């Protein structure tokens, strides 16, 4: 994958990503992050992060602000020093290798195009730094711009382009050097919703075609789940879980992952022999152990893990309904100012009107349990309930 002037004719003809050849070129590199540690003052940004990314894989680092995901990406790019740990690419330890010699294309959150160059020169910049001749690099830059659908804009300067166009040029610029690894540092977060969706699809399509090993940093779970082969949920410098999006959603390893990925209801429960008692029923516990029988816990259930039925003596009152297409999300206010969200087939909810009484139960699936939340979170729950009441 490493670019060289003596590479295949397809490369020298500037046909990067231009067709079937692209797949053959995209070998991708294997990336290993081994026990990375980095501290900023009192903050442990990376706390023993270990991750292996297979060649051609698209991996997303997902987590809240300050969890260390960008630090990990920057360490891989060579922009961040490490207190401990190793970055290994294709078996080679990159310690001491400066960023400019790592062969990694990077797309930044802020539009990072060089304002003094037009789109073509921006894309050709990396090739110029590699000593590619003027004609060859301009041809290649034009072909990569075509790949992102911006060949007609090649003479435009960054200030003459929209944010979405600038990020596509930035993507083309990163791809033009045929990087061993593509690093995406929240490239969509500065764009408006419509452009974000378009570019998201485009990045995924290109990554699939080019098969470049890609590390994508985001705090947007929808982006991570929809784009990546595997998603790494980070918390306080550590990986909480690394799995395929579907597994992450359906089988979260920890309560943090369960709540960070997707929507999760928290319901009061009590540990009983064989499971946990919640909403009048007993279900099995996925993360069992550590709780004595009779102890109070909170049960984590996704909206589709609950069901409801109209009942005159039901314990819940329907507050709102949100039509989502084939399903409808119903917000139900339970006793104790507790609001829960229930996803049901839209046909089943047709007769439910706000204010009607319903009985909410947990489907017979294993659930996760967690310790009771702090007072602040209780207040947050109460606020949701109050908002639901008002609506």
């Amino acid at each position: 994958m490493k670019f060289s002037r003596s590479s295949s004719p397809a490369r020298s003809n500037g046909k990067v990503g231009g067709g079937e050849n692209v797949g053959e070129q995209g070998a991708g590199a294997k990336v290993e992050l081994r026990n990375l540690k980095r501290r900023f003052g009192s903050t442990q940004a990376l706390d023993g992060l270990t991750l292996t990314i297979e060649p051609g894989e698209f991996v997303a680092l997902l987590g809240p602000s300050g969890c260390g995901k960008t630090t990990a990406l920057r360490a891989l790019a060579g922009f961040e020093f490490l207190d401990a740990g190793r970055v290994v690419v294709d078996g080679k330890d990159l310690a001491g290798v400066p960023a400019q010699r790592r062969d990694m294309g990077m797309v930044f959150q802020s539009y990072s195009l060089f304002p003094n160059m037009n789109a073509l020169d921006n894309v050709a910049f990396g090739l110029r730094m590699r000593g590619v001749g003027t004609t060859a690099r301009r041809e290649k830059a034009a072909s990569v711009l075509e790949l992102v659908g911006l060949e007609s804009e090649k003479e435009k300067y960054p200030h003459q382009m929209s944010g979405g166009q600038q990020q596509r040029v930035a993507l083309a610029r990163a791809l033009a050097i045929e990087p061993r690894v593509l690093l995406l540092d929240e490239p969509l977060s500065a764009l408006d919703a419509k452009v974000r969706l378009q570019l998201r699809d485009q990045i995924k399509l290109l990554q699939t075609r080019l098969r470049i090993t890609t590390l994508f940093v985001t705090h947007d779970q929808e982006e991570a789940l929809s784009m990546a082969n595997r998603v790494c949920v980070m918390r306080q410098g550590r990986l909480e879980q690394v799995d395929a999006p579907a597994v992450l959603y359906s089988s979260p390893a920890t309560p943090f992952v369960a709540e960070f990925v997707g929507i999760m209801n928290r319901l009061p429960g009590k540990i009983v022999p064989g499971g946990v008692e919640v909403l009048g029923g007993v279900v099995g516990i996925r993360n069992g152990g550590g709780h004595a029988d009779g102890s109070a816990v909170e049960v984590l259930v996704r909206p589709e893990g609950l069901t409801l039925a109209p009942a005159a003596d039901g314990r819940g009152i329907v507050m709102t309904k949100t039509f989502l297409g084939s399903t409808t999300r119903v917000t139900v206010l339970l006793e104790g100012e507790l609001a829960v969200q229930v996803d049901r087939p839209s046909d089943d909810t047709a007769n439910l009107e706000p204010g009607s009484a319903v009985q909410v139960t947990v489907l017979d699936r294993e659930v996760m349990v967690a310790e009771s939340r702090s007072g602040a979170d209780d207040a947050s729950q109460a606020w949701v309930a109050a908002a639901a009441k008002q609506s």
Partner: protein
Amino acid sequence: MVALIESPVGPRPADTGEQDEIRPRRRRPRIWRGVVLGLAGVYFLIPLYAALRFALGGPTGGLTFAAFRSIPSQLGFSAAFGLSLRLALVTTVITLALMVPTAVFVHLRFPQLRRLFDGITILPIVIPPVVLIVGVLQVAPTFLKGTPYLLALEYVVLAMPFAYRSLDSGLRAMDLKTLVEAGRSLGARSISTLLRVVVPNLRSAILSATVLTVALVLGEYTMATLDQYQTFSVWIVYFDADNARVSVAASFMALIVTWVLLMVILSFDLRRTRRSVQAKEAA
């Protein structure tokens, strides 16, 4: 008026007939702005007018450009002006060569030290010139001692506050860290990134620093006198005793040259800003 304040969603002033109450309040700052600008203009322009009137004054009382026309042929002018131009060139090159990498380095690696550098770079303004001269003499290379180019080193110290501030404001206006990292991720070494990415985007700031440095060198008198070199400003003062009109005409000409340079830079920046806004609107 009260109703307007109390009701943010109420009708606009134009719809209410209360327009006349609002207009005078808007006009007041404009009037004051005009007064302040007018006073400042008078303060600066009257001496200039007086100098110009004096330089244009003919022996018989009429107006003539004779003083301006005779400047190039005056004894010592060419040598003094030539020396000042050479010093301006050398000073500018050294200043930019020192200050551009320094300012970039501070912004990039030690942004928390920017205030400290602000303080350090202002020192040449508060330290007496004779102290600066002694300081420069201590560190100046031997081959420069006894040549007028020693002045260039002294001028570099004097120009530092102005050059640093110009560059500092230029660097603040750009996302330096991201641009440099983008350059490095594409394989550019530090020097390539500096020359191909940072410097072109600092063009206005560098031009501004250059003009300020040139203006400073052309007008500096104290150090040149102490070092006993006849630069342009020293020549103006000495020549004043021989022919005051020509001396004033030369001063006026130097001022106009500096002013024109500044206007060129301003119009250059203005054109870029307009183009940028128009392009954004078109996009």
